[in-house]
């Protein structure tokens, strides 16, 4: 019941935080620490990738919401992708998906990012 965190760069100074395993009361501080050191005002987009996450508790949710607050405060984008059914269910219980940018998979998120990038290019 451990958590594996992989942080990788994305386009335009974005960061992808891929989490695998269990995000619970014991491992949430580990993710918080990684986010504290990797997410700053200069990060344009923070993507949390849940593809290999098996378990999520409220302790983990708090880290996610805290990260969203940081990104909202700096004007950056905060995206959630690849939520597995059990993970999505936890978000839904506390009605937390409203107002979040959630994508079922990479393809759907890429489409969104392309549209957003084109808007920037077109000066919208």
């Amino acid at each position, binding site marked *: 019941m451990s958590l594996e965190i992989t942080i990788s760069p994305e386009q335009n100074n974005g960061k992808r935080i891929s989490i695998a395993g269990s995000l619970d009361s014991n491992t949430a501080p580990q993710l918080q620490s990684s986010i504290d050191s990797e997410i700053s005002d200069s990060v344009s987009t923070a993507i949390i990738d849940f593809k290999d996450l098996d378990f999520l508790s*409220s302790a983990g949710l708090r880290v996610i919401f805290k990260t969203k607050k940081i990104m909202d405060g700096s004007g950056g984008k905060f995206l959630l992708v690849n939520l597995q059914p059990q993970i999505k269910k936890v978000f839904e219980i506390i009605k937390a998906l409203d107002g979040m940018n959630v994508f079922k998979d990479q393809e759907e998120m890429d489409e969104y990012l392309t549209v957003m990038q084109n808007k920037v290019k077109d000066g919208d």
Partner: protein
Amino acid sequence: MNKQKTTLSNASSENTVLSEFLLAYIDENNIPTEIIDDLRLVAEETFINICQYAYPCDVTQNIDIEIDHTHDSISITFTDTGFQFNPLTDNTKPMDTENYCDGGMGIHIIRSLTDEQRYKRVEQHNVFTVTKHYT
């Protein structure tokens, strides 16, 4: 019916032991595996809630965990000696985006993922039982 009991200290790190105890019980008693994730989450939320709120800081106490089941349900009972606190009535925080970082999510998760929740105060003990049905 195969009641099993364990005693943990009120340290959040003990949550791992609780999960292992629960998973072993489910395995040994052929409880339907589709409820594993829900039960593990309910157990964590309840246990962490007790660890965080039942005792003053730096006080080490025991929390008893008892699991039992019938032909169509499983129950987990948490017994602690902390401050009197009924999570079903004393937790009045509304669930909105302003409260996500301040706690209060646990009881909503517990209520949503179990079919029954019962609290009683017995001789200076908080006794909280959650039950989940399965088919």
